[in-house]
């Protein structure tokens, strides 16, 4: 693999900047962190992000950065395949597209035509939309679905900006989901009551095999512990739960380890979801990616979504739920 690294240009060797955002302070902050990168002016982020025939797999080895402003729709209703944790008015927003990690099962590989990372710097427009919405009704908002926002914090401090925006807004509850160990980047902030930091956790063997570039379990747990100690609301996400040889033992070990290191009483809640993916995304992944135990697994299709057959799905969810019930009250465990 060292030969592979040596032939690729470094990540973010090129930064594409949309016309009109050059003077945006966040854009300037991001650009200042990459003084050696080629800055390429573009008219619209889709001119680069949506080019035909891009090779996602190869691009992952030399991701480029696109800085843009998002126009049109900025908030979307939460999709059925995602857990709303009993909240009404579930929405999500995408301050960035794509992720610096390369998880083999990630639906972003089938959703986007490019592995390049897009950061939208017109934060005020996003905030305005949310403010308008929460004037009408209470809103549960997830801001890290199409990216890992906390992992990007050293490039663009978006999590911090969103937390400060959300602070004190009674009609807004916000989730920031992450696999990162980058909690220190927001540790200077006072915890916000209406913000939940949600960590996705997987068995160590899954992280090693399928979550390329993502931090190991040990580092994630260390940051969870710090966040809990600082007073943050923390959610544990076992999503996706994957089927593989030895999965039962792997999840037993995972949950045993988590609660040997983290006090269960501090956990806000937990979500458990079997691997599932919209048909079109999986179709694209199967076409574009090499043989994979996850991508090419013979899933069952229901309502345009591929997942494990009912029996296996029931076993996976049942097992993880029963393991969690040893540590958390049932009402804190949400199944998808």
């Amino acid at each position, binding site marked *: 693999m060292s030969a592979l690294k040596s*032939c690729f240009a470094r990540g973010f060797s*090129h930064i594409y900047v949309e016309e009109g955002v050059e003077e945006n302070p966040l854009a300037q902050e991001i650009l200042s962190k990459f003084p050696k990168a080629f800055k*390429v002016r573009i008219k619209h982020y889709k001119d*680069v992000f949506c080019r035909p*025939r891009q090779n996602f797999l190869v*691009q992952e080895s030399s991701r480029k950065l696109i800085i843009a402003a998002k126009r049109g729709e900025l908030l979307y209703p939460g999709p059925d395949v995602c857990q709303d944790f009993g909240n009404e008015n579930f929405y999500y927003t995408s301050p960035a597209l794509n992720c610096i990690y390369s998880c083999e099962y990630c639906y972003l590989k089938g959703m986007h035509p490019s592995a390049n990372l897009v950061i939208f710097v017109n934060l005020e427009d996003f905030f305005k939309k949310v403010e308008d919405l929460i004037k009408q009704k209470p809103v549960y908002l997830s801001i890290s679905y199409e990216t890992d926002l906390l992992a990007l914090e050293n490039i663009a401090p978006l999590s911090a900006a969103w937390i400060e925006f959300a602070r004190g807004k009674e009609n807004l509850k916000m989730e920031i989901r992450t696999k990162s160990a980058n909690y220190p980047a927001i540790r200077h902030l006072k915890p916000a009551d209406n913000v939940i930091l949600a960590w996705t956790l997987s068995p160590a063997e899954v992280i090693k095999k399928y979550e390329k570039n993502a931090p190991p379990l040990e580092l994630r747990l260390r940051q969870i512990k710090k966040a809990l100690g600082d007073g943050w609301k923390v959610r544990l996400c076992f999503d996706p739960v994957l089927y593989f040889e030895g999965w039962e033992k792997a999840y037993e070990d995972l949950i045993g380890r988590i609660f040997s290191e983290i006090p269960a009483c501090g956990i806000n809640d937990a979500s458990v979801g079997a691997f599932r993916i919209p048909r079109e995304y999986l179709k694209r992944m199967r076409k574009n990616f*090499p043989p994979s*135990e996850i991508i*090419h*697994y013979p899933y069952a299709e229901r309502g345009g979504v591929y997942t494990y057959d009912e029996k296996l799905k029931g076993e996976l969810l049942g097992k993880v739920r029963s393991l969690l019930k040893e540590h958390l009250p049932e009402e804190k465990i949400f199944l998808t």
Partner: protein
Amino acid sequence: MFYIVTAYHAEARPVIEYFNLKKVVKNSRFQIFAGSDVVLIESGPGIVASACAASFLLSEFKAEDKDAILNIGIAGAKNADLKIGDAVLCHKIIYHDTGRAFYPDILVKHAMKEGVLETFDFPVAKEDLPENSIEGDMVDMEGAGFFEAASFFMPPHKIHCIKVVSDYLEKVPVEPAFVSRLIGDNLSLIRDFMLSLESVDSFFPRGLSREDREVIEKLAENLKLSFTMAHQLKNLALFYLSSHERLPEELFDFLNVRVNSKREGKNCFERVKKLLC
């Protein structure tokens, strides 16, 4: 395979010599030269000619995603930041007439400079144009047409324009021998870039081999599988290959099976599925 498009013979000549290419007799208006892993076409000047030549080359030689296509030629630089003789890999190519821009994916390391190319429909002399009317670092008459045409066939990390600076857009003719020397002097840099492009694919595992595909197709035919079942079979083969070096030997036994009805085929397919799961 590498495909190379040049506008003029003076640009092509050093490439032909460097890669030891031989003239190919083809029933076409283009001059084509080929070696074991490089094919070159001389398009003539202009974006339409370059687009036609790129399309012809990629169609005629049945280019695949693992191949790459380069436009190699000279260009005039807007200012002295670029030196005469500099080889420049273009990270943005603008068609001046429409303002449309194209972006090659520069994923591999290289030792060339980088810049923006702007393609005009006419020869450009800086003194004839209003100030600030050139956005690019360099000017040519082919790049945008070449890139747009090649984009119909190839992924953007396999399409590149490499321009060698020949002048500063003054009204001074550039001699063919000088052009050949400029291109020739940069061919080792260009070859290194080509080797990097080639090596990218070798690092990534591929899907089904041609032999595997033939086996799957033959099985689908023998077992009278529906389109959906054939698709499932292909997916199962990929699933199997995710944890095995090759398809199971027992699968090949089914190549000798001929079924007489769809029901019989379905039964056989269930056995095949068990082999691959």
